[in-house]
């Protein structure tokens, strides 16, 4: 039994680690209340996806994919496609993180805090003169969020 586990882990252990990391990050994004923490979990998630893609590029005994005239056979070099794709994914994650940070800065300026509870209630506090639907709009959001995380149908629960 232990030996089968070993071979499984050797062959596909990294995949499981990547998925665990991915869903850990998604859990972090949903549950922690501070928007800055949510943003960090988002980064962890993006890194997890990038790692997942790179798992396909590995070849036992492969050389980095730069033609050095020594190894001739194609199977000698690592698979270049995932690396090329993940360069784009890294730049995209940089872009989204940059925009997220800018939004966070504006949020701290406008609302004074990045805690989700202050933000939602903050909206109500600052907008006392606004109509009452402000408060139940926050409830509607919470209840909508509860509702969708409630039904379990093989997909990721959404985050608010």
């Amino acid at each position: 039994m232990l030996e089968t586990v070993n071979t499984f882990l050797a062959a596909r252990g990294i995949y499981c680690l990547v998925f665990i990391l991915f869903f850990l990050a998604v859990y972090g994004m949903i549950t922690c209340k501070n928007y800055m923490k949510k943003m960090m979990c988002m980064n962890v998630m993006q890194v997890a996806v990038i790692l997942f893609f790179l798992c396909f590029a590995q070849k036992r005994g492969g050389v980095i994919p730069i033609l050095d005239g020594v190894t001739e056979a194609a199977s000698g070099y690592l698979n270049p496609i995932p690396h090329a794709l993940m360069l784009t994914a890294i730049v995209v994650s940089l872009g989204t993180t940059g925009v997220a940070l800018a939004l966070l800065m504006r949020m701290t300026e406008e609302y004074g805090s990045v805690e989700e509870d202050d933000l939602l209630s903050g909206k109500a506090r600052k907008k006392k003169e606004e109509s009452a639907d402000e408060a139940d709009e926050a409830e509607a959001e919470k209840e909508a969020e509860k509702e969708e995380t409630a039904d379990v149908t093989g997909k990721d629960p959404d985050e608010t």
Partner: protein
Amino acid sequence: MRHDREVLLIMIMNHLPVLAVVVPLSAALLSLLLSRINKNLGKAVVILSLVFAFLDAVGLTAQVLQAEGHLIRYAMGNWDAPIGIEFYVDPINALLACFITFIAMCASIYSLSFLKDREWLQSGGYYTLIALLTVGLVGMTLTGDVFNLYVYLEISSLSCYGLIALGGKRSIPAAFRYLLIGTIGASFYLLGIGLMYAMTGSLNMADMGELLQSQMDNPLMYLVCASLIGAFGIKMAQFPFHAWQPDAYAYSHPGASPLISGAMSKVPALAMIRFFFFIFGVQNLVIVDATRLIGILGALGMIFGSVMALNQTDFRRMLAYSSVAQLGYIALGIGIGNLYGVTGSYLHILNHLFMKGGLFFAIGAIQYRFGIVNINQFGQLHKKMPFTCFTITMGALAMVGIPPTGGFFSKWYLMMGAMDKHLYIYMAVLVLSSLLNAIYFLRVLEKIFIAPEARLADRFDKEARRDGAAAKKHFLEVPAVMLVPIVVFGIGIVAMGIFNSQIVEFVAQTALKGVF
């Protein structure tokens, strides 16, 4: 001189697919520089590029309808299919590209009045984001490469976050929340691509389609379908993943909200149709379960969206929740999964683009002139803004599905599809959802036509007081730049109803014939 013009024309004609995307992209990248040189030059170039993109898309649709096999493949960098990236143009996505570029063109003209008194960085930057959003959306429709679709998805999402965040104080948290959930969607899409790449080794949709047919019983397909449903569900703001949508649509920049609400949620729907029907093929068991799940989510979304929209007083939030319901129609069409069902959902993609675009143009104009969005203050609005109320009425009737407008005919095809597969529950849900729509949309008409006059701070009076004699006389209800898109979309809603049979016959049936 005539010779070069001819050469140029030939060059344009046989590079239509790529020009539809590259011309707005180049205009976007240069718009900052041009608006630094002269404030209006940047805006003009972006609007001209969007006009060109629209004409290009129309030419592309005409070309693809005559092309043999109704298909045009354009290999980037002359590397053919599985090696390089290619555009895979068939009648369905060419026509959607036309509609997207049309609404983008109208939105760019419409937001001229919102950006009149801004200095060059803001107006140039705004127009760059509009152009890049259009590039992303048109690219996502036309591309034939799976990873290329991810990059277009990211470009359109990023510029969408920017456009929403420009919408003032309350749009910042909305944009942030949309950014987080959108990234979850994009990451799930990357997971889906990774799994598909692991199974087939190629990134080209057509090539991947053939390779997948033999591996349909591989349990990985369940994971692929789950992640794709998750990814496109989030981007479409379908029922369980819609929490970001009401704030994002409601508080986004009024000039860009028609484009965001009209086109942004439709393109992932078409991508979902492309994946589940064109690449995977609906006869495999796994896919039948997946489409049935989408159908169920769609049905729930229709009811949930309409119920939530009932108790909204902010007209934009009500429209946002009604978008969740209308997306439910599209998902229902995919869920039904036969020729009529998918025709209905495709037709509803086009109809909803017109309906929602028109309604958001109208509410943007009301916000511009009176600065109000609460429907209780809409009393006797038709006396002051007749054309805007005409579009709101047409949009409302189309949403409810009254025959002369387009909304009815997509509901007709959905019901035909449901009837062929004896899914009576879906027909009941369709009827219930149209009645719920009727309640809250006709209530808006009631508030406009019946409610007593509401005292509103009129922008024109403020200008008159401020400029005194210099204020120019307003004989139109809103500046002409805003009025033209509103009237065009009002008429477009009815035109969609009358010309829907041409759309269905030439576009949907020809392209979908091969699939079912």
